[in-house]
């Protein structure tokens, strides 16, 4: 996968923690650097004042690193690991549960080396019972820990649905705020390379309805690290969606500590003609299509929505008010996916700004097949994105 990563001006970003108990985090909070909001004011999702990452340059200008040091290159799974290590060093309540996360280092090497660093009490290998180790995470969180629960594949977390929906999402509410569940549930999902239907699930479809959960999807090493840190520090249960095919993406990330905002979308490529909303792996298909579109004279604005629940309607809205045309590109199935909800939210909030019906490119409502040409046909490809933009902009 070409590293057509977001060309960030790599300024560190801070998320001040408004209104939640900092506890033993006060030391770390002091080290995080604040950056003034760029452009149009700060996002106010979740009632928090949020400093934004500086806006990305257009695609054909060279990337600039505005940080003090040069930064270092990492693969995406290493970025996730860095985040875990940093948080576990600072906060002794952060722990990791999952299958083969300990001495094996995790199926995708995200937890490699952690058991040696922190011991096998804090990096716990669990027997194969997703509902139960997720439940264990809920119980530990209610008692004051901050577990990071790994599903070896997101699809397996369907077994944990009961604990995630009924307990994770609800116990803070039903206990009257007496018990909180600051867990992070993470793992790889999405369509891989011929992994078969059961290993190609898009769990964001299923989970998006659960009240009390937050969902984010990372797509670059930079946002993977920042989102993982933010998710661990959040007092709410957060589901962090990683993608099987993105773990080996390479990017230079800052040496300084940074945390991203969970509720914020990422401007990948500003433009004027159409707003393309996407996330995770589809971001790369969109950027590939963008190259073609630029050659054809179009100027698409590409936003990686990152926050799947709640949507960053501030960033999305500003974009729609500028371009008046929307294309959603997702990996979810047509029925009941993130695209379906996003479309509905846009219609509710920005109807007056639309000059064309919202288009949504999704996977078909079929189980993901194994055969390579069939699998490719079930995932939105750049050519379709180009055609859709041409249609919208007619």
């Amino acid at each position, binding site marked *: 996968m070409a590293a057509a990563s977001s060309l960030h001006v790599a300024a560190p970003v801070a998320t001040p923690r408004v209104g939640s108990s900092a506890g033993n985090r006060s030391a770390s909070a002091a080290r995080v650097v604040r950056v003034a909001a760029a452009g149009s004011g700060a996002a106010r999702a979740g009632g928090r004042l949020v400093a934004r990452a500086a806006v990305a340059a257009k695609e054909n200008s060279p990337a600039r690193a505005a940080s003090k040091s040069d930064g270092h290159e990492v693969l995406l799974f290493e970025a996730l690991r860095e985040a875990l290590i940093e948080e576990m060093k600072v906060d002794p309540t952060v722990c990791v549960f999952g299958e083969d996360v300990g001495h094996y280092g995790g199926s995708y090497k995200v937890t490699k080396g952690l058991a040696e660093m922190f011991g096998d009490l804090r990096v716990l290998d*669990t027997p194969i019972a997703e509902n139960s180790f997720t439940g*264990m995470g809920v*119980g530990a969180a*209610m008692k004051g820990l901050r577990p990071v629960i790994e599903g070896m594949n997101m699809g397996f977390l369907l077994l944990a649905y009961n604990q995630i929906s009924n*307990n994770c999402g609800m116990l803070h*509410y039903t206990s009257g*705020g007496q018990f909180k569940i600051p867990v992070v549930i993470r793992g790889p999902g999405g369509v891989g390379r011929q992994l078969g239907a059961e290993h190609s699930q898009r769990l964001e479809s299923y989970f998006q309805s659960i009240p009390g959960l937050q969902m984010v999807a990372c797509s670059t090493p930079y946002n993977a690290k920042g989102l993982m840190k933010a998710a661990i520090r959040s007092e709410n249960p957060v589901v962090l969606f990683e993608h099987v095919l993105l773990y080996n993406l390479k990017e230079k990330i800052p040496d300084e500590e940074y945390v991203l905002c969970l509720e914020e979308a990422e401007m990948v490529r500003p433009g004027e003609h159409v707003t393309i909303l996407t996330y995770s792996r589809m971001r790369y298909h969109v950027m590939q299509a963008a190259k073609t579109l630029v050659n054809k004279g179009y100027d698409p604005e590409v936003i990686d929505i990152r926050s799947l629940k709640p949507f960053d309607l501030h960033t999305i809205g500003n974009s729609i008010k500028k371009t008046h045309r929307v294309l959603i590109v997702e990996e979810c199935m047509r029925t009941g996916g993130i695209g379906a909800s996003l479309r509905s939210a846009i219609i509710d909030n920005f109807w007056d700004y639309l000059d064309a019906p919202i288009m949504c490119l999704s996977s078909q409502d079929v189980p993901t097949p194994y055969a390579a040409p069939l699998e490719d046909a079930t995932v939105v490809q750049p050519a379709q994105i180009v055609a859709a933009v041409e249609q919208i902009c007619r």
Partner: protein
Amino acid sequence: MAPWLVRTSSQLARRAASRLLSPSQHRRHRAPAPWILCSVPPVPRTSPAAGGGLREFCSVRGFTGESSAAAAATAEDGLAGGDLQELDFPGGKVSFVAEMNFLPESQRERINCYRVLDDDGRTVSGSKFQEVSKDMALKMYSEMVTLQIMDTIFYEAQRQGRISFYLTSHGEEAINIASAAALSMDDIVLPQYREPGVLLWRGFTLQEFANQCFGNSLDYGKGRQMPIHYGSNRLNYFTVSSPIATQLPHAVGAAYSLKMDKKEACAITYFGDGGTSEGDFHAALNFAAVMEAPVIFFCRNNGWAISTPTAEQFRSDGAVVRGLAYGMRSIRVDGNDALAVYSAVHTAREMAITEGRPILVEALTYRVGHHSTSDDSTKYRPVDEIEHWRTARDPISRYRKWVQGNGWWSDSDESELRNSVRHELLQAIQVAERMPKPPLTELFTDVYDEIPSNLREQERLLRDAIKKHPADYPADVHV
């Protein structure tokens, strides 16, 4: 045998030996303390890779993937030992037998049940139990009576339409109170839903119970849950969550947290006979054993899961035999015998904490009441069976006989207690009933730590709707 194979296997053997012989730092892995009140059969330590006590927290890096080499090694050694051939497989050594022997599906006799008091409230001769002081004994008794009265009156209140739902713990008062009495306030309680007595013991007042049942503005749950879904972080009693057995993995997680903090406390979780069929039961027991988590798994085997009798719930000898399957120490106890329950939980707690292990306690009892106010159990079980257990086998009367036999309680104490509890409860219900319900804002708070913009928007829309059509919304809810 290829020479390289022999060399490899002796390397393995040497590594294994050094792992086994390294001295343990953990006090938890010494031989069990001399348990005066019970005997613990010696745990066979034949297999190095399985269940060995001399290792780091639950990391068993034994013979995985090296079984063939190890097998080759032992095959050489084993022959020297005579008739019994042993073989190493992943998991440890096993002896061979030349006959097929299927383990029977059940033992000839059921596992024995520990009891201290006979039906007349006298201690069985030769019984060993944890002594209780007079004050403790009386507190246990009066809380059992309080629980019984509370259940009766709240049940009546539901029948009168004053609360929407209730379920009683009739017949399980000894389980509730005696187990709670054997715990410390630092122990974390993860209930199913038939254990309000544990909360009562810890200091939850009748008013607090009533507030939750009425879902008023003083309810700690802020009116968000059905009645009987109590919770109190102050009293270390996790909020009741309806789905069956989901609290069992929670208990393992809570115990894991205690273990991390090295606290002198355990987690205890309660569930019924029906709950043992859930997947979470299996996995939680398995996890707890593997992780050596200090949890007490307390099964209230009361014979019924709504209308499903235990004969249709499982074919094993109750829940107690399942402990062995997971490598967990277990005991069966007479759940209607307050002193037996007290002793068993007291000892289980000590074992769990000092040895860092889970314990399974199965308390045999009978669910005297209906499953809940939505159930009429006379539809599926004989009325005289219910009556028999309600009267002749009542745990409260039985314990009362013992307390009175010691000269600690009288009939006038009894009527005074019952009257005062009844009075206090009726007061509490009146107060709770008149208390306003939680305001509308509480519909949207605590979904997250802070209200996000979409929920604020939804709240605004709701307020607008109420303003426009006030007659269509209840007048007594503060907007």
